[in-house]
């Protein structure tokens, strides 16, 4: 495995690992780790570093919805153009073009349900290319970013064993 891939594997699991610890885990020296991170960022492989948040546990937390969007394209308007316009809204957390029954899957983050539904009905639905939207509010999150949302760890192994 090359250095960038090894560093990426560590960061994808835990973006808070510091350079010295990544160096220790990969066997690379610290300078090589720093170079690899720079290259990953410069090449657009790594776009940012964020916490995986369970918003249900935050006072005045946020509500999340997955919105299906269908669009109608014409000679001047392709997926790229539509995506560019949708992505500009700060409320849009993630935007994917998908295969199947609809075109875009949009993850929207809002203060509450009303906030999200107003955003969809007033900002997204009226866009000329958009023909249909279906909003699914997320009721409960069990796993996100590869991490299970559950209480504590339940390591029930014997504390010392042969």
């Amino acid at each position: 495995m090359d250095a960038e891939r090894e560093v990426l594997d560590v960061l994808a699991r835990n973006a808070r690992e510091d350079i010295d610890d990544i160096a220790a885990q990969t066997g690379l020296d610290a300078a090589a780790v720093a170079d690899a991170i720079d290259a990953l960022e410069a090449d657009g492989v790594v776009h940012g570093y964020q916490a995986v948040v369970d918003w249900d546990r935050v006072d005045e937390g946020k509500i999340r919805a997955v919105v299906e969007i269908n669009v109608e394209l014409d000679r001047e308007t392709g997926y790229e153009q539509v995506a560019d316009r949708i992505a500009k809204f700060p409320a849009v957390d993630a935007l994917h073009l998908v295969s199947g029954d609809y075109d875009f899957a949009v993850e929207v983050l809002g203060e509450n349900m009303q906030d999200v539904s107003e955003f969809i009905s007033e900002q997204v639905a009226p866009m000329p290319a958009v023909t249909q939207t279906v909003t699914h509010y997320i009721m409960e999150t069990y796993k996100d970013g590869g991490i299970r949302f559950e209480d504590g760890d339940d390591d029930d192994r014997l504390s010392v064993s042969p």
Partner: protein
Amino acid sequence: MRLSDRARTLPESGIRKFFELAEARDDVISLGVGEPDFSAPWTARTAAIDSLERGKTSYTANRGMAALRERIADHHERYDQSYDPGEEVLVTTGASEAVDLAFRALVDPGDTVAVHEPTYISYGPGIELAGGEQLTVPTRAADDFALTRESLEAAGAAEADVLVCCYPNNPTGATMTDEELAEVAAFCRDENLRVVADEIYAALTYGDDHASIATQPGMRERTVVVNGFSKAYAMTGLRLGYALGPADAVDAMNRIHQYTMLSAPTTPQYAAIEALDRCDDEVAEMVDEYDRRRRLVVSRFNEMGLDTFEPGGAFYAFPECGGDDEAFAEELLEAEGVAVVPGSVFGAGGEGHLRVSYATSMRELKEATDRIAAFVADR
């Protein structure tokens, strides 16, 4: 009740004391655990659940389900080991049963069994229960705890009847290359030793692939290989292992097994079939994670001044703490709430070392090694 001499004289495991000390506190970070911190792959667990839902709760064939034995034989092609699933594979209740059966099938009363140390703690008692006598062959830190022809000769192993060979090794994490094994194999052929090769950690090697003594010239016919699902597939509690060997040895082991165990538990056999069919990727991910932890732990111990050789397998590092390892481990537990196992528990050559298991989360490993570094600095 009057107890047999055999039972009364069997020594208490040295690990017991540290288990009790660690259990007495509730703030302990334990680096003393000899099993994976992962759970068995979910797909393997669902296969076990499905089998229960379908009512598959009968005995299996004494030797284990044919479908499982076939997959085990196929799986071992990756180590250049070739065994006939019909006559040369025996599924057992954990690798522990396979080790016990191997001793009972190969050792006559008065026979001598050479065991390299430091090593896993069950061989000595197993040999004793089979009526044999253990001959200890110390391995040396200077050899990174590999077994050598010189150490076998120096210990008088030429007179032994059987050799136990456990690599990748618990507690040292040592592995052996084909070249190193060739020397040991030559010794076994020259001195007519049979071998019990406990290869339970074969899937957990970092860098080089596992090398088996059974694949050395002339060794297949004199070696029983023991392996299982506990370590590679994080299935310790499901108790499923197996033995591979020449038909006469496996047949002898099965003759004992059919009376003492009848068959290995059925539910885990279904999990094991699924594990072999579909879980290579998950094992590879676990190996990658162990490898990252291994590098972190080894570099941290070397930085804090406890010399640690680079272990090639299993999930243990074996740092040198110097002097009285038991006192070091007790004081460390007392002062910093970190549990490790003193190397001397694992026999000759382990003194002055600590067994550090990195089968625990990266976060805990960092916290524990920070605490150990503080302890070493104060000492």
